[in-house]
Structure formats: C-alpha cells, structure tokens
C-alpha cells in the first residue's frame, strides 16, 4: 500500500485532530450526552484507520506498534475491573462516588438541566476504561490484519505482484 496523494495526506493532517477531539469528547461526556466508551472508542480507532490508509505501509509501520495498543486495551479492562472491585463493600461495581461531593461526586439536580461534567460517580471512569479498551482493540484489529497481509503478500510485491 503506497501513500496516497499530497491532497489526501494534507487533509488527513488537519482532520485527524478534529476526529481525536470529537472521540475524546464523546468518551468523557458519556453520562451527559448520547455516546459513551464504545462509541467514542470507535471514533478514535477510525482516526488510526485514516492514518494507515492515507500514509501507507512505511509510515504506518514506523509510527504504530502492536504492543502499544495491546497495553492500552488491557489497561482499559483492568481499570474497569479495579473500579468494580473498589465498591466491593456493597456489591460488585457499586457506584460509591455518586453524590458524595468528591471526584465526579456533585449532586445532580432533578429533571431537565444542562448537565454538569463532575457528576455520576464511577460512570465517567468506567467510560474512560471502556473507551481505552475499544480504541486499543479496534486499532489492534486494523493493525494486525494489515501487518499480516503485508507479511504474506510483501514477497510477491517485489516481483511486481499484488500491491496491498
């Protein structure tokens, strides 16, 4: 897979930051607006896919590593489980931070309101955990599938075969 034209790479340079910002916004505001960890993680992983498609084989191999995304994915799942065990005094995944005034602990007003980011207890933390897990997992799927393709078909490419 060769890098795409100058137009595509320039547009990618600009738009990839907007995609990352939007994905992080969706993950962090999961308890206020539609979205959450799964959706925001998918948006963030689409930025990785865009980078690979626009910049091609050599840049992608230089900048993206499988180990980094495996670590990110495992960290997300471990964070989720640790937060779950933290509320073990009551029950697994008990919302022990909601309404206590501490981290994410503001008391929410009843009814329709504009929303406050510092509410909802463990829900934003779980959203971040799920977001890390999904962005790591989906990026790992894209990366390992492409790396495997390149390993197999790279041999033929030297002899003027398929360009993947």
């Amino acid at each position, binding site marked *: 897979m060769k890098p795409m034209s100058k137009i595509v790479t320039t547009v990618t340079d600009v738009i990839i930051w907007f995609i990352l910002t939007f994905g992080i916004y969706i993950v962090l505001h*999961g*308890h*206020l*607006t*539609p979205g*959450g960890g*799964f959706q925001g993680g998918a948006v963030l992983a689409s930025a990785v896919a865009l980078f690979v498609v626009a910049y091609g084989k050599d840049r992608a191999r230089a900048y993206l590593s*499988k180990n980094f995304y*495996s670590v990110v*994915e495992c960290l*997300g*799942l471990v964070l*989720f*489980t640790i937060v*779950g065990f933290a509320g073990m005094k009551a029950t*697994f*995944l008990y*919302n022990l931070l*909601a*309404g206590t005034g501490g981290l*994410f*602990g*503001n*008391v*929410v007003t*009843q*009814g329709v*309101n504009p*929303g406050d980011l510092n*509410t*909802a*207890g*463990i*829900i934003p933390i*779980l*959203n971040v955990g*799920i977001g890390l*897990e*999904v962005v790591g*997992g989906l990026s*790992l*799927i894209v990366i*390992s*599938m492409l*790396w*495997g393709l390149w*390993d*197999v078909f790279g*041999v033929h490419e030297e002899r003027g075969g398929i360009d993947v």
Partner: protein
Amino acid sequence: MGNSVRWLVFLFAATFLLAGLLSIHPVGEPINTAMDDYFLAWGQAETGANNIVTSVVFDYRAFDTLGEATVLFTAVSGIVALFRGVKTR
C-alpha cells in the same frame, strides 16, 4: 418440485407470517412498565447521570457491560492470534 407445490408452501408460510405480523403489540404502548418507571424516576438521583441510557448500561447493568468488554477482548485476542507474523519461507 412442481409450481403448484411452491405456491402452496409460499401461501402456507405467508399466512403464518402475516398472522404473526398483525398480532404484534402496537409500538409505544408497553404492558409492563414497572422497570422503566423506576429508571426514569430514580436514575438521576441514584447514579447522578443525566443520560438514562448510560446510567442503565454503566451502573444498573455494569456487570453486563463488563461481559461485553470481555467479548471484544476475546475477539481481538483471536484476531491477533490468527494474523500473527506469518513467515512464508
């Protein structure tokens, strides 16, 4: 198989499908609303989340979400194992 047999099978299946379609409960008039009413009345106070869907997914049913995350983790593990570095020579 003749044409008439095909028509018979078609009419037989279509009758049952149409009967099932016509007897579906109308959308927007649920029968058992106890759980929905509880989430709408207490979701904001108990979890502090304005988004009721998130309060169900990440608080009341968070264990189910952990299972979902595990499913994704297992799928990714399988794909990574399948597409690991293959040396052709």
